[in-house]
């Protein structure tokens, strides 16, 4: 075994089962890699003691012959997941010092399967952002650089720390969450695989809420097979989440045959945006050709309401956020502002929230408050929910016409420089290809498919039918095999 941190989850699983290595060895290798990677800003809370104990327990389980696929696999956990006794602050100042008394369903399931937690990962504050620049911890940095430049690039967001950590081989996989593209955009920016499951596939219990009708957790991994393995351990029905689906979970890894003969892949014309870089256009055309060569039928399709997805999202998500974030009042957990003589409870709320929330979170809470306020509720919020219904109807129609999956670019550009993209609306446009999928509740996966002229990774997105993650993963697997993306960032950190 040369460099244990470079293993995929599947390789590590097989090596551990064969006795070629142990969870403790891989875990230690990851902990050393993390120690040397402070410049990436990926890990923001380190849990080496928990990791050591979990690795030891995993090795004992494997010895005893009880080894689920995730047993002994060291992971990073996005700071949005509540982890018992370990800081979980959604990268926000308002949750400073918060140590949950409970464990999220996703992390409970992963730990029950024997996975090892190395620490908590950086992200945009409350998952609101597309560049990891709204984090109270400071930026996470992309391990990739443009050519020989040393400009620090964004790993994307909101799951920027997860993306950076997986791409830099600090962990074998990471949890992410995706409300408008927060798994798929960062995965594309760092050349890894990121899967957002169907809404309801993965329990939201114990994940700090942003926009509850859109939020979904998923795996961020080095390849498609690893996403299948990790999703298996993360998903399933949970009575603690009333929107969790009570449906059978198929064997995702077993679905990876690479055979997509006769499948119909839709190419939506509305995703060909004005001013789209030629390289993205070419990547998309190449991906289409690859799927065709693999035996799929290609169909031109139309999703007419695509253009309205982002504006609808920027009503619905802030509206839900303003309601969800009302709980941060300085009473039950987290930060409370120091009060002046004579300050009452209203001053306490107002000062606490002004100090605890960063500018982007404040902006979204206030936009959400506005669109829900008396006199504007119908004009903004209800109208956005109607447009959302139309966006979902577009997809329903296409799937009813026999399309099995839809291929699009994952992002409108490669990773940009930190600090280069400061206008909020320009930032929102990052999610133009991903946000439709959240609004329609569909599964979507980002697969690395090539490099741009500056040597930065680019991703393609596949969108599947509801609950058909297995088929979607298999199509992604076929694309991955055809694309043959193996590039890694050159270590500078």
């Amino acid at each position, binding site marked *: 075994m040369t460099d244990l941190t470079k293993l995929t989850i599947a390789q590590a699983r097989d090596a551990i089962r064969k006795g070629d290595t142990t969870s403790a060895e891989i875990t230690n290798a990851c902990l050393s890699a993390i120690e040397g990677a402070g410049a990436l800003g990926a890990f923001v809370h380190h849990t080496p003691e928990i990791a050591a104990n979990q690795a030891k327990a995993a090795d004992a389980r494997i010895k005893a012959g009880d080894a689920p696929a995730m047993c002994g696999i060291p992971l990073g956990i996005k700071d949005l997941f509540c982890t018992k006794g370990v800081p979980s602050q959604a990268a926000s100042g308002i949750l400073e010092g918060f140590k949950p008394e409970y464990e999220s369903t996703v992390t409970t399931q992963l730990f029950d399967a024997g996975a090892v937690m190395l620490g908590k990962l950086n992200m945009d504050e409350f998952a609101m952002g597309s560049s990891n620049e709204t984090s109270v911890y400071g930026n996470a940095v992309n391990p990739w650089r443009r050519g020989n430049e040393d400009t620090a690039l964004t790993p994307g967001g909101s799951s920027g720390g997860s993306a950076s950590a997986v791409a830099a081989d600090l962990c074998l996989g990471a949890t992410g969450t995706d409300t408008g593209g927060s798994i798929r955009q960062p995965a594309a920016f760092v050349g890894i695989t990121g899967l957002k499951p169907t809404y309801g596939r993965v329990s939201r219990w114990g994940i700090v809420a942003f926009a509850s009708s859109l939020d979904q957790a998923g795996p961020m991994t080095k390849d498609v097979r690893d996403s299948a393995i990790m999703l298996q351990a993360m998903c399933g029905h949970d009575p603690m989440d009333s929107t969790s689906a009570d449906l059978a979970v198929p064997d995702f890894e077993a679905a990876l045959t690479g055979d997509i003969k006769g499948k119909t892949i839709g190419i939506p014309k509305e995703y060909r945006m004005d001013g789209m870089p030629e390289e993205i256009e070419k990547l998309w055309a190449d991906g289409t050709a690859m799927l065709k060569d693999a035996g799929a039928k290609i169909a031109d399709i139309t999703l007419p309401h695509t253009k309205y997805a982002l*504006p609808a999202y920027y009503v619905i998500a802030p509206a839900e956020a303003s309601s969800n974030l009302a709980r941060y009042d300085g009473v039950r957990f987290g930060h409370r502002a120091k009060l002046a003589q004579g*300050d009452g409870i209203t001053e306490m709320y107002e000062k606490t929230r002004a100090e605890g929330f960063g500018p982007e979170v404040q902006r979204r809470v206030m936009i959400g408050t506005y669109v829900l*306020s008396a006199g504007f509720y119908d004009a903004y919020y209800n109208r956005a929910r109607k447009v959302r219904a139309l966006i979902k109807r577009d997809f329903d129609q296409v799937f009813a016409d026999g399309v099995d999956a839809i291929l699009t670019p994952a992002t409108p550009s490669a990773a940009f420089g930190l600090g280069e993209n400061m206008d909020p609306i320009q930032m929102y446009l990052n999610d133009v290809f991903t946000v439709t999928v959240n609004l329609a509740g569909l599964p979507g996966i980002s697969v690395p498919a090539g490099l741009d002229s500056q040597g930065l990774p680019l991703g393609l997105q596949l969108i599947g039918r*509801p609950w058909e993650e297995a088929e979607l993963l298999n199509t992604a697997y076929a694309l991955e095999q055809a694309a043959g993306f193996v590039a890694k960032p050159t270590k500078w950190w």
Partner: protein
Amino acid sequence: MSIDTETARRVAKLARIKVEDDQLPALASEFSAILGFIEQLNEVDVEGVEPMTSVTPQRLKRRDDVVTDGSQQEAVLKNAPDAREGFFAVPKVVE
């Protein structure tokens, strides 16, 4: 839609976020830009469309109305900025 500073002040108040007076004009112009972007939605014909309540066509599940949890006062108060005698403590609310 252009948002004036009075509206920005009212929204900040509703959201219980303290915004200093000198910050209000900048906030109002940010709101105006974002709402301008959102206003594209007015181009869409939504006649006869029901607003979406649930993205997956499933009935919200119900459970039996029985106690399943409780007696965790210590855990509940553990993260409170100010907890006293088994309660959350806040500034005086009633004169």
